[in-house]
């Protein structure tokens, strides 16, 4: 069962959902809008090293055929409800694809959620813009504890399955 916007609000008040910072005008009928944080990883073709890009208020143009790892500006999570990270229709219509294959968040994970961004055509994005929406679901059955692999993440996090780039591979780029 998916939560209504009213129930999301009530769960926040009960402490069963965390959204920080929270704005009441970003609640939707069945979701909450989240915004784009100001730091993005532009992954290199080897998917191991990347450029760290700090978005300026004038924006940054995402390019096709490139994977970007961004993150929500908000810390989002719940110990009771399951989160799904969804895009927004208005940006999907501009060819922005967000967390296409892995939109399921685990119960108990509270973090700045990493966003896997790709675009069909070049698209200029801006820090703090509403970039997606998160929905919350009631689970059926006894809850399993979350393993915590990505719990507490701050900033965009690359894949943790293998050794990632040495610091020498990381380049900082201002957009």
């Amino acid at each position, binding site marked *: 069962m998916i939560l209504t916007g009213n129930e999301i609000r009530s769960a926040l008040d009960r402490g069963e959902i965390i959204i920080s910072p929270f704005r009441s005008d970003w609640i939707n009928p069945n979701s909450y809008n989240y915004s784009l944080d100001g730091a993005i990883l532009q992954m290199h073709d080897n998917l191991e090293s990347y450029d760290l890009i700090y978005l300026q208020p004038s*924006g940054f*143009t995402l390019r096709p055929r490139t994977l970007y790892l961004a993150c929500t500006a908000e810390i989002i999570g719940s110990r009771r409800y399951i989160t799904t990270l969804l895009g927004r229709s208005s940006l999907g*219509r*501009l060819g922005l694809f967000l967390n296409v294959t892995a939109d399921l968040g685990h119960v108990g994970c509270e973090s700045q959620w990493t966003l896997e961004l790709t675009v*069909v*055509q070049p*698209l*200029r994005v*801006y820090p703090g813009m509403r970039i997606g929406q998160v929905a919350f679901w009631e689970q059926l059955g006894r809850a399993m504890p979350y393993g915590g692999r990505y719990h507490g993440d701050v900033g965009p996090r690359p894949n943790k399955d293998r050794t990632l780039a040495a610091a020498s591979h990381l380049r900082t780029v201002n957009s």
Partner: protein
Amino acid sequence: MILSGIAIAEAVRSGEIVIEPFSESQLGPNSYDFRLGDRCIIYQNHELDSHTQNPTADIAVGCDGLVVKPDRLYLFNTLEMMGSTKFVPIIRGRSSTGR
């Protein structure tokens, strides 16, 4: 909780779900197959901006179809009018076209 195809058909009959036109042959075990409309728009500019209006152009889609190319975004409508005041819809692709 997700509806079964039978429950979708019942909700269409009771008016809690609108699918127009509706055909029982398009029901799946937990979904309804929607069809591609015949209107398509593309963006006039290659580079898009999320903070401005991006001008679009209509493309005619004939009976012989339209070849969609990589690196370009196409916006279509569903042939059906769909919605519900009670249930939350999720729009999904089909595995056969995903392949």
